[in-house]
Structure formats: C-alpha cells, structure tokens
C-alpha cells in the first residue's frame, strides 16, 4: 500500500467493520438458526408461551422429521425436484451453449436482434406469464405433471444462461478458433473441442445457477401442479404442511431445512462460481 498505516489503525478499522457487520450477519442468520431450533423442539415446548424460544430446554426430538417421512410425500417431492432440475438444466444449458456461441461469435444478419430478444426475455418476470402458460400446459397435455415444469423452466433458464455464456465466449480469443478451422476442423468440432473446454467455468456457472433456479422455483410449480405426488419439494413443504388453519410448525421447519440442504451443499462447494455468475449476469451485460 502506498500510504503506510500503523498496525493499530488497521486493527481499529477492522473492529469498526466487524461491529457494523455483526448486526447484519445476525439478521441474515437468525431465521435459519430459528428454523433449526424449531424443527427439533417438542410441541409442548413450542406452544408454551412461558418457554424461551431461542433454544431447546426439554430435549431435542426427531418427531417433526419423522412426520415428514411417514405422513407426507416428502421423499417423492425431493425426487421430483431433482428430476425436474436435472432435466430442465441439461436441456437449457445445451440450448444456451449453442445460442450463446452463435450470438457471441458468429456474424450473420439478425444476430443483434436475436441478442436483444434474448435479453428482453431475460428481464421478463415469470409472474407476467404464468396464467397463459398454465393454459399452454393444459393444451400440451402436461397439466398436473412434472413434465409441465421441465418444459416451462427453460423459458427463464435459457435467456439467463445464454446471456451469461455470451460473456464467457467473448473472452476466448478468436485466433484459437481460427487456428482450429484452418486445421480442417468443422465448426461443430471447433465449438465442441476448442471453445467449450475454454468456456468451462462459464458452463459450470450456468449449470449451478440453472439447477438452483429450478430447485427454488415456486410460482410455476405452485400453479401448474395440484396432485401431492407430483409436487416439488419447495411447493410440497409450503403447501401440504399447512392444513386449513393448522400449521405443523415443527415439520414445516424440518421440511424447509431438508429441502434446502442440496442447495446449501452445492453452494458451499461452489461459492466462487455463484459470486462470479451473479456479478457477470448484471455487470458484464
């Protein structure tokens, strides 16, 4: 650093930063902590107004988790979520690689307009189209099935991934591709063997984001599916554990935790990709 600072000043500055960050981190983490505490607490303690809500006094129990597996379709919901996320992500990323490469690299008439169209659809919030889509799904004969989600999720994944990947493809030097073409490779081979390996971080990022967006999706999954056995984890937990006026709080929290775990695991391992995807999505634009 150009301006030399004393050790004491630096420590003071760090303490200031932590003192500011601490309340915010508490605000971020408390709901998650409270979920965990609630999910292990007995109903007697949960609904006792005199008990302290912050921790467990009468012993942790697993009943709320057991209820999920015994009295609900929780396992099926998780399977549905996984299936939908894997299929929709695969389809979307493949389509987006092709489209992203085409828009970022190839020169042809209309490329600019296609790029704009992709960007505009990227900005369309899913809530604008869920009503007509619910009818399209009926006409396609996919109503009330996980297929409805596999077909509709790419509508928001493809614009996002295409936009993200265009940014990565642009960073690859043109010369590399030209060399491959001169050496007699076809365009498809160039894309497959030369460009894709170089864009791998971008592709990983697109896969991670797509998977997360699918897993977390709520609007379409709530709208298009009514049968319990066809629900995704997010909708199953939020819908089936509230019966009329009765809230199964312990199991609601247990379900919310278990249904979030796959995403948390991926997140912990790939934090840097999330950060780069998040910023690339908005900043590279």
């Amino acid at each position, binding site marked *: 650093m150009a301006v030399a600072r004393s050790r004491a000043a630096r420590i003071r500055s760090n303490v200031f930063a932590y003192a500011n960050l601490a309340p915010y*981190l508490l605000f971020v983490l408390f709901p998650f902590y409270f979920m965990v505490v609630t999910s292990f607490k007995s109903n007697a303690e949960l609904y006792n107004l005199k008990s302290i809500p912050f921790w467990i006094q009468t012993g942790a129990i697993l009943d709320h988790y057991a209820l999920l597996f015994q009295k609900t379709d929780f396992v099926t919901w998780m399977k549905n979520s996984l299936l939908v996320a894997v299929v929709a992500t695969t389809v979307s990323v493949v389509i987006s690689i092709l*489209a992203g490469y085409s828009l970022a690299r190839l020169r042809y008439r209309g490329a600019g307009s296609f790029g704009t169209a992709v960007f505009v*659809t990227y900005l369309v*919030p899913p809530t604008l189209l869920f009503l*007509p889509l619910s009818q399209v799904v009926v006409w396609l004969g996919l109503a009330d099935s996980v297929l409805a989600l596999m077909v509709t999720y*790419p509508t928001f994944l493809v614009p996002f991934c295409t936009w993200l990947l265009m940014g990565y493809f642009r960073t690859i030097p043109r010369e590399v591709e030209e060399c491959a073409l001169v050496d007699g490779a076809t365009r498809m081979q160039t894309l497959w063997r030369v460009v894709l390996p170089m864009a791998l971080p971008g592709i990983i990022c697109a896969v991670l984001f797509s998977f997360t967006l699918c897993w977390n999706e709520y609007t379409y999954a709530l709208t298009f599916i009514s049968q319990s056995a066809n629900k995704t984890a997010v909708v199953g*937990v939020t819908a089936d554990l509230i019966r009329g006026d009765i809230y199964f709080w312990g199991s609601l929290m247990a379900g919310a935790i278990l249904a979030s775990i796959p995403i948390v695991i991926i*997140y912990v391992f790939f934090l840097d990709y999330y950060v780069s995807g998040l910023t690339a999505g908005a900043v590279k634009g």
Partner: protein
Amino acid sequence: MAVGPRVLEAAGLPGSGRLARLREWWEQEHIFGYGLIVPAVVLLAVLVAFPFGMAIYFSLSDYWVGSPGEFVGLANYREILGNETFRQTVQNSFVFTGIALTFKIVLGVWLAMLLARRLPLKRVIRGIVLLPFVIPTALSTLAWLWMFDSLYSVVNWTAIRLHLISPPGPNWLGQPAYAMAAVIVVNVWRGLPFFAITVLAGLMAVPREFLEAAEVDGAGSWRRFWHVTLPLLKPVLAVVILFSTIFTFGDFNIVQVLTRGGPINTTHLFATLAYQVGLQGGNLGQGAAISLFIFPLLAVVVFFQLRYIRKE
C-alpha cells in the same frame, strides 16, 4: 455431431456427394449461426412470445378456466380499474417496491463498502451474506412466517422482554401497516445479497490510485465516497437498480407465503392478485389483465437497460 472429411474419405465415401454439399452449406458462417440459434428461438417463441400474445388475448376476452369466452374488448380493464382491490394493489406495489428498493440500495452499498475491506474471514462472511439469495425463497419465508406468528412471534417475545413494546405486541401479519412492513423486511433480507455482491464487484473495479490521490488531497472518507467512489459506481448501480425494480415489482413468492395478499388486500401485488383472480377464482381474462399491468414498468426497464448496453 459432424464428421470430419478425412474420416469419410477413409471410409471410402465419395467426397463430392450430396452429403459433402450439405456439409459445405452447413459450414457457412451465417447458416451455422442460424442453425445454433434455432432451438432457443423456437423455445422462446412458443413459450414466451406466444403466451404473451395469449395473455393479451385473455385480457380482452371473457375467458374462464375450462370455458374459452368471447372477445369483450376492454371490459376487463374497465372492471379492474373500477375495483377497490385493484387500486389498493397498485398502491401496495408502489409502496412495496419504493421502500424495499430504497433499503436495498442504501444497505447494499453500505454492505459492499464493508465487504471490500481486507478482513480476516472475508470468504466466510461473503458466504453468509449470500445465503438468503441461494436458499429457496418460499422456504426461508416460512421461517419468517413463524417468526411473525400472531401468538408465538419471537420478534414480539424479544421486544417485550427488552421492554421495547408492551404485550401482546403487534399482530404482524394481521394488521395492514405491520403486514406491509413484514413483507418489505423479508424482501430486503432476501434481495440485499444481490445488491451487495454486485456493488462489491463494481467497487473492486474502482482504481485504488483515485482514492489514494483523493486522500493525499486531504479528502475525508465520506467525501472520498461521495465524490470518487459513488460516481464510479453509477453504471453498476443503474443496472442493479433496474434489475431489482422489475423483480421486486413482479414479486410473488414472499407475499404468497407470508400474507397471501391479506389482511384485507393490503399486501397484494399484481402477481398475487392475478393468481387469486385468475387461478383460484378461475377468471383468466381478468387475471391476465391484472398481470399485464407489470408490463409497462417492464417496458421502461427494458428501454433503459438496452440504452445502457448500447452505450457500452
């Protein structure tokens, strides 16, 4: 997958047949370019552009679930605009978006400034900050639903013990102003990471020399922020704000899980009202008309975003 010419020759196939011509045609830059974009264009045409057209058609017709109605012109719009619930929803949407966005901008910049320091445990802190953005929103909102429970609210419990409020405390999701506050708090909680991390990326791009030069010139930290950092952050902030405007305005998850638009419609947004009228009530025509009110704002955002991108 295309096969190289050498493979074909080795296999004894004629190099000048139909296949070769096809391959030559396919290898042209513009043909290949169109070919690769076709799947995406077909998908977006069938599942975005077409439904959008349908939404417009629905909104102009007397369309109920299961019974395609006839064209009724602007009757749905007229009915909606005269509807008390809808007017309330318009007001809610602007209040919700305005307040939530302000908090996200101010706190987002503040948080980004703190995260830009070289702190020990920086990675861990960053990981925690992003958490609400990554966890399924509908599920984390369940935790807030429980925290705002009418009887067992931990928020009230704590505030009462700290003598900040007198028992029993507000019924968060049952009183209009409190319900709106609750919905905004959760939206800020969930949306702040996006602001913080994106602005942080913008901060990293601010050249150190600028700040050091300003420091040498005797500018205090506040003036350095106001006159050097903030102007340089403008482009990033503009993009993030535009993004967040449309997604806050079109929010569905948080309100649907937390209040379902209640109490007495005071937290309804366009999306939740459209869901209630169009799907639960079965009046697809009116539901579509309601959700189309998101469109004008979307158009404005798209306009500014595109102008910004072109400038780049």
